[in-house]
C-alpha cells in the first residue's frame, strides 16, 4: 500500500531528527453495512478508510500524527512537525527493511473485496425478522444489521520491520421490540468473528429471531428490580464483560505504567478467589478478538493473567514494556491509523470451574440471576465499575421467582474478584467491541456461569 522507498525515506528522516523509534502504520479498509428495519432494507452503506499513522518515540514520549495522504512530502512534513521540539543528534539511518510474511491463521473464505453478498445478508436479516415476529404478536418492531470489514494493514519501523496483515471482521445483530400497548421492552441477539461472510455457516436465523423475541418478552413482563447488597449469579458468555471491565482494563500497561491501576504493584499476589483462572488469548481460531500479529507487528499470544487467584501477567505493548520492564505480550492494538497503539485485551475470559447453575441458584437466600449482561464501564484508578443487566431474575430461597428490569451492578474490581465463589462448567465466549485510549477494537469476552457473593444491585423497586 505504501511504496517501500517512501517508507524508508520517511523513517530515515525521523532517525535523522534523533527519534529513538519510528513507525508507519498504513491502513486501507473496506467496509459494508446492511441494515434492516422490520421487514425491509433500511440502508446499505459502504466505504473506504485510508490513512497512514506516524509514530515517533523519544524516550518515553510518544509523538503521533496521521494523514489520508501517502505522499513522501506529506509524511516527512508530519515527522518534522512532530519532532520539532525534540530534535536531537541524528541516529544511524535504516539499512534495509526485512519483510516478514505473516501466516494467516484465520483465513476468511467469503471476503468483502470479492463479493459483499448483500443479497445473502438481506435474506438472513429478513429471515431473523420473520422468526422474531412469528414468536409472538407482541413483537412490534425489529432492527437488524450485518457489518463486514476487510482491514488491510502494513507496518514499517526503524528496527527494519516490514510486515502486513489482512483482517476480516463480520458481525450480525438483531434487536426485537415487544410492546403490550402501554410499555415497550427490547431483546437482542448477535454473533461475530474474525472471519468473512462464512459466519453465516454457524448462524441460524430462526434461533436468532426467537432469542431476541424471548428476551424482549421476558423484559416486557419484568418487575422493578429490588436493590441493595446481595449475591448475584452471572450468566455465561457475555457475563464475562464484568471481568473484562473490572479487571482486564486494570491489567493493561496503559494504566499500569501510570500507576493508575489498583493492580499496578500486585504482580505475584493473590488478587482473586482461588477458584479464578483468567486468560487473555489472541490466538483462538476466528474469534472476534483474535489477531495474527498485533498492531506493532508482534505475533500475538495466549497470556495467563490470573492463575488460581494469583496475578501472573499484565498486558504489555511496546511503550508499556519500555516503561515497566515487562515483556511484550502481542497486545498492542488500535482501532485504525488514527490511533497510536496501546496495550489492549483480545479474547478475555475466566476459565471453566466445577460448579452447576442449580447449585449456584440454590445457594442464594435472596439475590439476582443476571442471565444476560449489557455493557459497562470502569474507572481504572479506583477500580469502580458499573454494568447493566439486560435479562435478570429475582431469586429467593434458592428459587427463581420473576424477571426484573433496569438493574445495574456496581462494585470495584479488586473486591468482586475476591467475591467470586463458584465457577460453572458451561463456558462460552461472546463477541463485543471495546472502547478505550486507542479507539474501539473487536474483542471477545467469556466465562462459565459464576457466582459473586456480594455486589450492589441498583434497582427501582
Amino acid at each position, binding site marked *: 500500500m505504501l511504496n517501500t522507498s517512501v517508507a524508508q525515506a520517511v523513517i530515515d528522516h525521523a532517525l535523522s531528527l534523533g527519534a529513538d523509534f519510528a513507525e508507519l502504520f498504513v491502513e486501507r479498509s473496506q467496509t459494508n453495512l446492511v441494515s434492516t428495519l*422490520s421487514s425491509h432494507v433500511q*440502508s446499505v452503506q459502504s466505504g473506504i478508510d485510508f490513512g497512514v499513522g506516524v509514530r515517533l518515540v523519544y524516550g518515553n*514520549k510518544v509523538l503521533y500524527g496521521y494523514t489520508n495522504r501517502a505522499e513522501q512530502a506529506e509524511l516527512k512534513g508530519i515527522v518534522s512537525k512532530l519532532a520539532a521540539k525534540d530534535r536531537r543528534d541524528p541516529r544511524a539511518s535504516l539499512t534495509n527493511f526485512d519483510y516478514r510474511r505473516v501466516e494467516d491463521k484465520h483465513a476468511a473464505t467469503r471476503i468483502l473485496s470479492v463479493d459483499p453478498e448483500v443479497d445473502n445478508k438481506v435474506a438472513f436479516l429478513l429471515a431473523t425478522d420473520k422468526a422474531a415476529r412469528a414468536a409472538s404478536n407482541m413483537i412490534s418492531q425489529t432492527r437488524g444489521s450485518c457489518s463486514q470489514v476487510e482491514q488491510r494493514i502494513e507496518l514499517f519501523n526503524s528496527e527494519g520491520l516490514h510486515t502486513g496483515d489482512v483482517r476480516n471482521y463480520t458481525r450480525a445483530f438483531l434487536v426485537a421490540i415487544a410492546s403490550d400497548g402501554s410499555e415497550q*421492552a427490547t431483546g437482542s441477539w448477535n454473533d461475530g468473528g474474525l472471519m468473512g461472510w462464512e459466519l453465516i455457516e454457524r448462524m441460524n436465523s430462526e434461533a436468532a429471531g426467537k432469542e431476541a423475541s424471548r428476551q424482549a418478552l421476558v423484559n416486557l413482563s419484568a418487575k422493578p428490580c429490588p*436493590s441493595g447488597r446481595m449475591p448475584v449469579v452471572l450468566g455465561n458468555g457475555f457475563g464475562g464483560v464484568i471481568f473484562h471491565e473490572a479487571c482486564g482494563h486494570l491489567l493493561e500497561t496503559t494504566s499500569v505504567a501510570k500507576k493508575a491501576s489498583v493492580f499496578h504493584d500486585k504482580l505475584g499476589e493473590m488478587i482473586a478467589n482461588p477458584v479464578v483462572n483468567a486468560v487473555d488469548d489472541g490466538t483462538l481460531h476466528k474469534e472476534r478478538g483474535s489477531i495474527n500479529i498485533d498492531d506493532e507487528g508482534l505475533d500475538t499470544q495466549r497470556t495467563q493473567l490470573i492463575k488460581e487467584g494469583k496475578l501472573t501477567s499484565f498486558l504489555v505493548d511496546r511503550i508499556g514494556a519500555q516503561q515497566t520492564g515487562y515483556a511484550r505480550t502481542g497486545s498492542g492494538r488500535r482501532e485504525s491509523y488514527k490511533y497510536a497503539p496501546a496495550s489492549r485485551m483480545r479474547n478475555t475470559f475466566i476459565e471453566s470451574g466445577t460448579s452447576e447453575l442449580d447449585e449456584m441458584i440454590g445457594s442464594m437466600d435472596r439475590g439476582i440471576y443476571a442471565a444476560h449482561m449489557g455493557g459497562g464501564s470502569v474507572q481504572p484508578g479506583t477500580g469502580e465499575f458499573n454494568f*447493566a443487566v439486560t435479562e435478570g431474575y429475582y431469586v429467593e430461597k434458592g428459587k427463581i421467582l420473576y424477571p426484573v428490569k433496569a438493574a445495574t451492578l456496581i462494585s470495584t474490581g479488586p473486591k468482586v474478584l475476591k467475591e467470586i465463589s463458584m465457577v460453572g462448567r458451561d463456558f462460552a465466549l461472546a463477541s463485543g467491541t471495546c472502547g478505550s485510549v486507542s479507539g474501539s477494537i473487536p474483542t471477545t469476552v467469556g466465562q462459565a456461569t459464576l457466582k459473586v457473593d456480594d455486589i450492589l444491585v441498583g*434497582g427501582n423497586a
Partner: protein
Amino acid sequence: MTHQQHASQILEQVKAAGATGDLIIDQGRSLSLKAREGALEEYKVSSSQVLGLRVIKDGKVGTAYSEATDSEALKSLVEQALLNASFAAVDGHESILANAVKLHTEDALLCPAEDIAIDEQIDFALTLERSLATRSKVKNVPYNGVQDNTGERHIFSSAGLSAYSKSRMCAAYAYALVEEGEKNAMDGVGQAARLFRDLDLSQIVEQTHENCLGLLDGTPVASGHYDVIFDAETQVQLFQTFAMMFSGKSAKDGVNPMREKVGQLIADSRLNVFDKPQNSLGFGYALFDSEGTQTQSTPLIVDGHLSTLIHNSATASFFEIKTTGHATRGPKSTMGVALHQLEIGKGQTQVKELLKGEYLLLTDLTGLHSGANAISGNFSFGASGYLCEHGERVRAVRGITVAGNFYEMLRKIALIGDQQFWNWEKSALMPHIRFEDIAISG
C-alpha cells in the same frame, strides 16, 4: 483540484446515472497533548478528509464514503452509492431538497483568528499536569490533555446547494487520583473555548482538586427514595441519553414512545425545553443542518406539553409537516435527525428555595451507554455526589445507584431553578432541576 471541482465532477456522474445526490466533505486538523510526570507523554497531530455521497435513484437511497481521494476511489464512490441504492426499499419521502442556495458561517464567530505558538500550548499541558500533581493527596494525574481542533464542512447537492462551515474548539481536561491511606478517589473537569487563551488553567486545577478531595471520604447512603439534583454535567448527560424522545426519525421507525404524544402533557407543566442552534455562545451552534436547511429555535416542550418532534425533510414528509432543520448526516452515515443545542427554560425558584431541606446532589453518573433504555425510559446508573442539606454538603456519597424511568421523572419535578448553566462542553444550557422520589440504592 478544489472541493468545488471534486463535487462538480462527482455530482455530474450522479446526474448522468439518472440520479440526484449530495456530497459532504469533512476536513479536520487537530492537535492533542498529554503530560505525565512533568514531561509531554503524547503529542498528536492530524489532518483528515473524508467524502460522503448520498444518491437517490428511482426513490431508492444509497450512501458511500471514501477517505482516499485518488481518481479510482472517487469513481468507486459513485458506483458504490448507486449499487447500494439498488438494494434499498423505495422511500417515497427522502429527496434532495431544491435549495440552490449558498450558505457560509462566519469565521470571526466560530473560528476566530489566534496567533498562538505550539510552545505555549505545550507549556499549558505541562503546567496543568504539574500544578495538579503537586497538590495535597494527589497521587498522579493519569488522564489529562489539551486539544485544539478545527473542522470544516462543505455540502454540495445536485440541486445547486453550496454550504460551508468552519469552527474551532480548544479544550483542556484533567482527572486526578487522590489517595489517603486505603482511601482513593478520582475525578476531573474539562473546559472548552474558541480561543486557546480563553482556557482557564487555574480553574481546572482548583475544581479538579476540590472534586477529588470532596469524594475521598465518600460512602454509600442508605437505600431509599430521595430528592435529587443533578449538577450541570450530569443533568445534560441524562437528557442527552434520552434525546431519542424528540426524534422524528425514531417515531417514523416506530421506536419512539412519544410518537403519538405530540400536543399532550408529558412533563411537569413548569418544564419548557427548546433547541436553540443559533446561540453562538455554545458549541452546538449551527447555521444550517445537513440538508442545508437554515436552522431556527424550536420549542420542544412548552408548559409540559410536547410541542413537536425534530425532523429532516424525509421524516417531515412522512408526517406531512415541514422540516424543523434537524437533518444530520456524517460522511459515513445515512440521514438522521439530531438536536443541535438543547436548552431548558429558566424556572421560578431561587437558589435558596431550590436547595432547601435534604437532597442528593449527583455529580457523576456511570454506565450511561449501557444502563439506559431510551425506548422504555428505564435506567439504572452508578452514581456519586453529595448528601446535602440546605445547600451545604453534609457528606460525600459513592458506590450508589440511581434508577427509575426518565419519562416518569419528567413528571416528578419538584422545582426548577431560576438560573441557567452550560455544561463544560457548552453543548446544552439548563437550570438545575430538583426531582423528587428517586430510587437510590446504597
